[in-house]
């Protein structure tokens, strides 16, 4: 399937720049806060309380972080399952972004564990509670992280000239690619199942019951497409390369119809459950619900025509809005719409925020390092398509 005319090549160039320096400083700040957190506990760093045992480290770093890291999943789904070979140049960069997104999402769970030194218990047969949704999510995400490193390993093997290993791996790779599609389908829906368990503690607008896994899975795929567009556009402008719009336009078409299906599903589900009334109440939950819905509906309007999908700016804005929509859906479900009882509230502390920002900074930093040194991005853009 790979088109040898634009096989991936290392980008080269200097790693050091004002941007990477800034990112490095941000990552270092997060590192210091985390050391402090591991020594003095969650209470010393976070604003978590008995009512809100989960804050942004779970809601953002894990739930949203892994959903935003679904680029690799969505592209693998498209290229290998639906056999759309023309998107192949997008797979490796998408996979790289996913790799970091997921690895750090997995590691972030440890930051949020009160007794973090017991984190290995979940993998130990005597300790694991196999009937728990958390167990499913934990094992599935861990397995997917390993699978993704294997999926991505050809980039390293090419760089290090290990042809023999690569050839052997190529024969087995289909198996890992299949796993790489199966596993995210499982745990992205399970992240929605977590909210099923929260039950009545979730505001009616996000209390979709057994539809929650579907909603979370569909938006994860949607976010995957959006992230690929976002990241392709950013790396094109950032590394001063030609825009990849010709490949992105047909991708946006698939994304558009997925989005249309999702919005229809979401609205019908809310109306059918009789929860629509709560959206018109004067509450913060209703306000953030409309913000979330706007993020999904606006791209539905602006990207309606094929012409609009050819515009790099409209594609970019649409992708950003969709990412924001997926972000809001998850923040709303896990924090804004989480009603744990009278009097409880949560807003992240500066230290919590700095850790999350530091993790994102570290992700971008590692991405820049790898695309400069390993064959990830396509070597040259075709002059015309």
């Amino acid at each position, binding site marked *: 399937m790979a088109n040898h005319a634009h096989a991936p090549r290392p980008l080269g160039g200097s790693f050091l720049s004002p941007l990477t320096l800034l990112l490095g400083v941000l990552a270092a700040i997060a590192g210091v806060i985390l050391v402090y957190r591991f020594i003095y506990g969650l209470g010393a760093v976070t*604003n978590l*309380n*008995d*009512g*809100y045992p989960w804050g942004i480290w779970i809601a953002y770093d894990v739930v949203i972080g892994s959903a935003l890291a679904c680029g690799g999943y969505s592209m693998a789904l498209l290229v290998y399952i639906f056999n759309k070979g023309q998107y192949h140049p997008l797979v490796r960069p998408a996979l790289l972004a996913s790799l970091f997104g997921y690895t750090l999402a997995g590691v972030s769970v440890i930051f949020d564990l009160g007794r973090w030194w017991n984190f290995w218990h979940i993998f130990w047969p005597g300790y694991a509670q196999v009937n728990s949704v958390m167990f499913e999510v934990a094992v599935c995400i861990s397995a997917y992280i390993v699978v993704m490193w294997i999926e991505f390993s050809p980039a390293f093997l090419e760089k290090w000239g290990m042809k023999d290993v690569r050839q052997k791996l190529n024969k087995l790779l289909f198996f890992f690619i299949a796993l790489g599609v199966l596993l995210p389908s499982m745990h992205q829906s399970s992240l929605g199942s977590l909210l099923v368990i929260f039950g009545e503690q979730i505001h009616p607008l996000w209390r979709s019951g057994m539809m929650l896994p579907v909603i979370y899975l569909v938006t994860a795929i949607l976010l995957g497409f959006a992230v690929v567009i976002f990241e392709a*556009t*950013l790396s094109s*402008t950032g590394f001063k390369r030609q*825009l990849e719009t010709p490949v992105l336009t047909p991708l946006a078409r698939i994304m558009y119809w997925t989005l249309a299906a999702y919005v229809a599903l979401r609205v019908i589900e809310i109306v059918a459950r009789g929860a629509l009334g709560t959206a018109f109440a004067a509450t913060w939950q209703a306000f953030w619900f409309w913000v979330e819905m706007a993020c999904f509906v606006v791209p539905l309007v602006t990207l309606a025509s094929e012409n609009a999908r050819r*515009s*790099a*700016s409209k594609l*970019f*804005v649409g992708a*950003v809005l969709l990412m924001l929509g997926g972000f809001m859906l998850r923040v709303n479900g896990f924090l804004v719409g989480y009603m744990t009882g009278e*009097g*409880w*509230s*949560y*807003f*992240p*502390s*500066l230290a*919590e*925020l*700095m850790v999350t*920002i530091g993790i994102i900074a570290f992700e971008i930093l590692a991405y820049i390092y790898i695309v400069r040194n390993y064959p990830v991005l396509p070597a040259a853009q075709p002059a015309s398509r």
Partner: protein
Amino acid sequence: MSETYIEETTEAAARVASRLRIDRREFMQFCAATATTLGLSTGAEAAIAKAVEKAKRPSVIWLHFQECTGCSESLLRAEHPTLEKLILDVISLDYHETLMAAAGHQAEAARKAAMKANKGKYILVVEGAIPTKQNGIYCKVGGQTAIDMLKECAADAAAVIAIGSCASWGGMPSTIPSISGADSSPTGSSGVADVLGKPVVTIPGCPPNPYNFLATAVHFLTFGKLPDIDQLGRPKFAYGRIIHEHCERRAHFDAGRFALEFGDEGHRKGYCLYKLGCKGPETYANCSTIGFGDVGESNWPVACGHPCIGCTEKGIGFTKPIHATAQLRGMSPPASYPGIVEQQGKTSFASAAALAAIAGAAAGGAAMLAKNLGKQDETQAQKKGE
């Protein structure tokens, strides 16, 4: 355990059951419960059953001196089994002033006859303190002083058990606060061990838990000797631990949650009664684990909301004021207490500002990028137009 042994035990149990007119299951339950109270190993219930089924019942002489009969009353409230169903059949209660039908000289004659017939084999149980001042003239039965009667009965007894705090060390009669400031009571009330000048088994309490007495008696019947006792003569199975150790309110003590007065919020919520003067932390007894009145573990003074007065402990019960706080034995309160009121969440203006700044920067950056992309779109469209 061999099969024949089990068969024998089963048959024996059946015989006892028919004799006592209770079913076999009820009888075996009594034996098992007694073995458990005593903290005996598996198989002990069978030995107990075998001992109890013996046709020859040991003779028991029960003396009353300076007392309120509360200990006997407590024993009458034992329901597993009831006293009349089992103990009166297991033992031969030959002298008990409250329970016996005989009266006057007839009663004293019965005692003397029993002592003669069972010389060296009967069990002597003493309830109540013995007055010692003025040669013990403050308590007489049938013209005989308590001291004389006790010494006479104890001489040929196989075992002496002092039931209740009065017989154990003098109890309430010995601790009447005297106006002159002197320690002792007006009548010089003393415990059995002091009068006899040798250690005896004591079952202190006001009243003591009937099962502590029953278990001690059954232990003697089964094994021919009394259970292990501490330096004060108390069986270790019942008085080996401080009440506080197994108190159901202990978690409140550790968390620093106390009832401060009767009827306050903490009292109604079942908090620790330490600050109301509970003597649980300095009193040895098993009240917190077996409870009273056969209605479950939650029926004992502390569970009912009243502080323990330390009735089983000499120097505490009837001596210390009921609402004086106890001295903590063998434990110290934690260095810090967990918060009772949890903070329900706080807002951080710094992080809110930082979040707003990031959102603004991201929105601005995205808008700039979109604008540049728009320009590129236009130039491309123009190129196509050309």
